């Protein structure tokens, strides 16, 4: 069983962030790391723990973002209610996708997830009367906790920290509980799991539905923080890949991995863009090249992800340390 102290350190450091740092740019980075980490963790519930790799999770993220934004702008409903509505819708769609996963395996399932997010993109960008189409929706700012109109970035850090910690606990449950062991068995070999009495299909569907609902909740909070919902962003394949990438980079199927991966991606992207963004018209895209190279090198040397890679190197060194 893995120890939890690295996670405690991570979350404690994040909690200390607003006390130590006053800089809005850095606080913004911290908020995004926690939010993307939580989203990647939500993806990890299906993709990592249940082994159902989805490249359409932006669909659920977008559902969460749109539900709260639309309910807020059109009927002045609290984003917390919007969060629940989004999570509810995502659960429903998650069930449908889950049933699909019992029919489609491997690349066919992945393709189905991509198609699913593209359908929602089309709906959101074409249904102008309701969603404002491709213009997107500005999220109204009404001060207060109930309306999530929070200007203070430090407060946002703690809000998303609660979300991130919650998702860490969800994953810890999936690692140590009865259902977690059964899900691991389904991921490894579904038929063998069935032969041992594991209700494989039901578990898979439940994992995908839960993953969808959690992703939607992250989407709501993200939209409320950023203040604007753009269909081409929230339903994009790029975004789906980002959730998946963060989890894989940090360590798929590990509770802290998605947060580590999200931290790496966010820091890398933001710092590279800040460093090379204004370098001159001919080199505008150079940060993307560096970004890509770093990802490739990481996966070349740590194909299991960073967290398992670090754990392995510590284990190798441990006997030397103890005999010295």
């Amino acid at each position, binding site marked *: 069983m893995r120890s939890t102290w690295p996670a405690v350190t991570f979350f404690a450091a994040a909690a200390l962030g607003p006390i130590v740092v006053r800089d809005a740019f850095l606080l913004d980075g911290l908020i995004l790391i926690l939010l993307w980490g939580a989203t990647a963790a939500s993806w990890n519930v299906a993709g990592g723990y249940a082994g159902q790799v989805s490249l359409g999770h932006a669909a659920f993220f977008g559902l969460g973002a749109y539900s709260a934004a639309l309910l807020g702008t059109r009927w002045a409903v609290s984003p917390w209610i919007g969060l629940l509505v989004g999570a509810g819708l995502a659960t429903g769609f998650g069930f449908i996708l889950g049933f699909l996963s019992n029919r489609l395996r491997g690349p066919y399932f992945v393709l189905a997830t991509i198609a699913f997010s593209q359908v929602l993109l089309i709906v959101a960008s074409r249904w102008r009367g309701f969603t404002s189409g491709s213009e997107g929706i500005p999220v109204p700012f009404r001060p207060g906790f109930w309306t999530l109109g929070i200007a203070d970035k430090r407060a946002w850090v703690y809000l998303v920290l609660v979300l991130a910690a919650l998702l860490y606990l969800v994953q810890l449950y999936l690692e*140590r*509980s*009865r259902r977690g*062991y*059964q899900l*691991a*068995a389904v991921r*490894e*070999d579904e*038929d*063998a*799991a*069935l*032969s*041992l*009495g*594991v*209700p*494989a*299909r039901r578990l898979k569907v439940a994992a995908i539905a839960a993953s969808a609902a959690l992703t939607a909740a992250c989407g709501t909070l993200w939209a409320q923080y950023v203040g604007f919902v753009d269909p081409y962003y929230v339903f994009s394949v790029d975004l789906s890949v980002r959730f998946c990438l963060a989890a894989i980079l940090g360590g798929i199927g590990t509770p802290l991995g998605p947060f580590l991966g999200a931290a790496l991606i966010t820091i890398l992207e933001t710092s590279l863009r800040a460093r090379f963004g204004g370098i001159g018209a001919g080199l505008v895209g150079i940060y993307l090249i560096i970004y890509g190279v770093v990802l490739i090198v990481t996966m070349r040397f740590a194909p299991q992800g960073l967290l398992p890679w670090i754990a392995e190197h510590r284990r190798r060194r441990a006997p030397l340390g103890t005999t010295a």
Partner: protein
Amino acid sequence: MSLLSVAGITKRFGGVTANRDVTFDVARGELVGIIGPNGSGKSTLFEIISGFYRPDAGEVRLDGGPLTGLSPDRVCRLGVARTFQKLRPFAGLTVVDNVMVGALTRTRDVRHARSRARELLDRVGLGEKADAHARTLSTGQRKRLELARALATEPRVLLLDEVTGGVDQRSIPGLVQLVRDLHRGGLTLLVIEHNMRVITAVAPRIVALYLGEKIADGTPDAVTRDPRVVDAYLGQAYTR
């Protein structure tokens, strides 16, 4: 009263009939061997009993209750466990975690499942490997792992598909002894086995299948002397 009853099982795959009207009963505590040349429908029969295939006709009953039409996980929870001919360990999990998956079908308590799994691993002689990854095990050890995993589901009937198949000669006696011990302990077993010497030594009763049909059912002596069995294994030239 029979514990497991197989009645009139027929299964077709396109034009091929894998099982044709196969019928036999297994009494509580009995060990029944199933033999037959390649392609005689032994494994298909196991897939049907364990719920992975649905028969075209016929019925499987456990203690009077129907099993046909139930999903494999339901069949297992009702008390029929199996091993696979082509071994299927959860390669990425540790040996003890593999067995825990089985144990967790009977208990909700993870800690209890772990201690139960360790007990079973000791029993099959894999206690020292408990914390190793399943992918590091040899074929013989994997067979023991599958056995422990299936036993962890506390079966009333255990289906073993090829216990000694693909295992090196030195590992066979240990595995055979394990099966004997389970039988002595009162477990009901249905054992597919290619190795005639093994099956005739272990099973007091043998069912022979050929081209999907049951051609003999009785003591090892009677079955191995049965002209139809000899014919099935050696071809017509050897029967007089």
